[in-house]
């Protein structure tokens, strides 16, 4: 094997790449290739992202005026509920794990596919079926419980299509569990020779930790929704206070899933950013092992903090204390990660291509969101700001500012690998900056409105909050443009973009040793790994600007 071959210049790959390996519709719908399934997911979640976005556009328009001018209260309630349900379960939870995770996990560990390819495809069909349920709920007249489905409102009082929506979420939960099982087994059983646990890229660790949460938390969500469905449809009393049921119990079950679910959304984002920052700073990631431990700690402790959603619910004071303490503790590993990303820039050779801009945007927004989380961990302050726009701003900073920024970072970083095409870089940079600005314009005012006492899920609101809502809605318009732009130029690049080389960023990692786009079985020969990740410079040397030697499919050093 020559150096030219290693650098990806010559010759053409012997087989067609995975995109050209069969072009019938059936070759896509019956595929077991993890890369094609990733594409199926990408198309699906893009549709859901814009569906959820359309719903919230109407909501933000309505909030221009304090007393409403466009929608009835019922329509408003259905729109924000639809936005939440779609964005959480049909966009954020599957976003990075099921697209990039599916595409990259086998490539990054040097495997030909995931452990259970047919289960992988089945999981996508479950997602589609679940989406059909939920979209049906909207088309048939909507659901107005909010994404939290609190009882007894959802089980006894709402006259909307709670059953269809809850059934959709119930089914998509099984898709989530199937994906999690698959990824865990893949990571354990299919690593290439030499790919030890502590040579895994951080993205793989992130997807692994995420899968743990998916597998162990999602079943509890399934139960909480099953109980709501049973109470509504079969009339079985579980949460009905008149018959002795306990509505607070629902909140325990629901948040046992839904707090860890936040980490399902943000851990993969951390993984993406941990790949991008070293690449564009041309440095090893600072404190690799601490990053790994931090991710595992977040995944583990994330299970023990759910009660901070319930400080005002009437749970016992002792429970509030315990949960408050644990919530402060989980901020420690998050802080470690932020410090380590920052330190990874030190003495680097930093360049600012669009993936790096998105990734730095992630660090900024995640830091802001994380710091605002401290307010919510401390009981007296949380009591004041919970159920207000402060909380809305906080979790959008983490889940939209954080996860969606990282999703776009990854999209731009791996686009050449996935599609084999190059996109117009200046447009991408512009979109990245616009997204950061638009995001802050939208959500920073909500912190103020929330502290001043504007409750969330308010269709009409006291007039003194109008100034913040107008700012927020204006920012949302900017943000909407920033989200639509990539759809345009990335779509353009599919047809007119230049051809991407194997490794356009000069990154380390096994995925960059495959052709762009990769062949159906990923690697022509079984890769062997003989070094750790992020080898941008030899031990004890400073960062350089040259592309690093590829950590690659070769037998000799």
């Amino acid at each position, binding site marked *: 094997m020559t150096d030219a071959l290693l650098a990806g210049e010559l010759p053409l790959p012997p087989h067609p790449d995975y995109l050209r390996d069969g072009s019938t519709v059936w070759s896509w719908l019956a595929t077991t290739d993890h890369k094609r399934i990733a594409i199926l997911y990408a198309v699906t979640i893009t549709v859901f992202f814009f569906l959820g976005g359309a719903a919230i556009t109407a909501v933000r328009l309505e909030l221009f005026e304090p007393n409403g001018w466009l929608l009835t*209260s019922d329509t408003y309630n259905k729109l924000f509920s639809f936005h939440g349900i779609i964005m959480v379960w049909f966009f954020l939870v599957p976003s990075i794990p099921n697209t990039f995770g599916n595409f990259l996990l086998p490539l990054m560990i040097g495997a030909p596919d995931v452990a259970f390819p047919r289960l992988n495809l089945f999981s996508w069909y479950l997602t589609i079926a679940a989406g059909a349920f939920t979209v049906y709920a909207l088309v048939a007249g909507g659901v107005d419980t*909010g994404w939290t489905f609190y009882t*007894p*409102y959802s089980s006894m*009082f709402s006259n909307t299509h709670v059953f269809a929506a809850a059934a959709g979420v119930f089914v998509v939960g099984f898709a989530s569990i199937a994906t999690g099982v698959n990824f865990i087994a893949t990571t354990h059983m299919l690593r290439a020779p030499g790919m030890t646990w502590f040579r895994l890229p951080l993205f793989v660790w992130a997807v692994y930790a995420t899968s743990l949460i998916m597998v162990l938390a999602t079943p509890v969500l399934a139960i909480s929704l099953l109980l709501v469905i049973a109470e509504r449809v079969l009339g079985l009393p579980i949460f009905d*206070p*008149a018959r002795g049921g306990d*509505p*607070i119990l629902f909140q325990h079950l629901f948040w046992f899933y839904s707090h860890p679910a936040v980490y399902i959304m943000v851990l993969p984002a951390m993984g993406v950013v941990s790949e991008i920052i070293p690449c564009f*700073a*041309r440095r090893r990631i*600072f*404190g690799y092992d*601490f990053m790994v431990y931090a991710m595992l700690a977040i995944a583990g402790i994330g299970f023990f903090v759910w009660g901070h959603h319930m400080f*005002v*619910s*009437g749970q016992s004071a002792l429970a*509030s*204390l315990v949960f*408050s*303490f644990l919530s*402060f*503790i989980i*901020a420690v590993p998050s*802080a*470690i990660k*932020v*410090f380590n990303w920052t*330190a990874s*820039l*030190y*003495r680097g*050779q*930093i360049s*600012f291509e669009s993936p790096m801009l998105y990734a730095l945007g992630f*660090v900024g927004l995640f*830091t*802001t969101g994380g*710091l*605002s989380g*401290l*307010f919510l*961990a*401390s*009981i*007296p*302050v949380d009591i*004041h700001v919970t*159920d207000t726009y402060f909380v809305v701003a906080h979790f959008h900073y983490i889940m939209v500012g954080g996860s969606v920024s990282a999703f776009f970072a990854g999209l731009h970083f791996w686009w050449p690998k996935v599609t084999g095409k190059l996109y117009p870089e200046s447009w991408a940079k512009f979109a990245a900056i616009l997204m950061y600005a638009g995001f802050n314009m939208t959500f920073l005012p909500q912190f103020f409105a929330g*502290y*001043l*006492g504007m*409750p969330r*899920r308010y*269709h009409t609101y*006291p*007039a*003194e909050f109008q100034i*913040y809502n107008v700012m927020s809605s204006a920012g949302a318009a900017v943000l909407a443009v920033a989200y639509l732009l990539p759809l345009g130029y990335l779509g353009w690049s599919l047809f007119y973009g230049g051809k991407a080389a194997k490794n356009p960023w000069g990154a380390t990692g096994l995925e960059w040793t495959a052709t762009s786009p990769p062949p159906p079985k990923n690697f022509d020969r079984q890769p062997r790994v003989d070094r750790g990740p992020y080898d941008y410079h030899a031990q*004890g040397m400073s960062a350089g600007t040259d592309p690093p030697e590829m950590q690659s499919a070769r037998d000799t050093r």
Partner: protein
Amino acid sequence: MNSPFRLPEASTHAVTVDHIFYLLLLLSGATAVLVFGLILLFAVRYRRGSSAKRGPMPEILSREFEIGWTVATLLTFAFLFWWASSADLGSLAAPPSALEIHVVAKQWMWKTQHPSGAREINALHVPLDRPVHLLMSSQDVIHSFFVPAFRVKKDVVPGRDTDIWFQASKSGTFPLLCAEYCGTNHSMMRGKIVVMRQDDYAGWLVQQPEGDDLAHEGAKLFVSQGCSGCHAASSNVHAPRLAGLYGRAVQLADGRTVSADEAYIRDSILQPKRDVVAGYEPVMPSFKGLLDDGEIQSLTAYIRSLSKEQPDD
């Protein structure tokens, strides 16, 4: 319209909360400045092609740095937890001297009732500088009693009583909001809290239409619902006497001992077979569905008022 830029600190509790809030703001502001500053500094100084000195990382320092800032954040958070929680624990229980006001939440209004019997809808008048203890229940779904100016909030849950207390420190009118999503008109479930000087409050109470106070209303219900048939002193039925009951320890048939508080009385009315008093037959029917939350509150207030009389008459 209230000021869109500042929130009044209208209760003693608000001052405490704001102190914690400002400290958190200071700490997180400093952290944000540090992180953003370092990122900007590194981004400029180590941009590709700059002449800044690179050289290898001082590897020895890295692990110590890592442990150092891990421990530092851990200690900071432990301190924050301790400070915030001790403030919270200090304000858990209402002072015994507090004025007790009953609140019933329903889709989509707040109904309040003063000890004198005066009732209000979507409004609550309270005296200045005097602790006020709210006993709250819901008739349908979960609501949340939220007064931003007091920094207090508590869910009002159907099937159980929750409570909250505050001491207003500024007179004026402040918004009362429902903070837990409760259906179509959730955002219209708003009211006002009017804080008055104590003599004004007394004057206001006098002007309210003649309403029976809770205990009198309860006394009427006690007769009209048939409770007196068994529980009155003159009754022939072997039923527990209620005079002096409130607050006392009660011996139950299954050997447990419970304290006769609001929750116990409520349970005894709605599910009498649950906590049967030692020495009595479980013959009382359940009043579930026959009494609404407001009526149960009145009955409870009546039973409470009996405790002031001689228990051994």
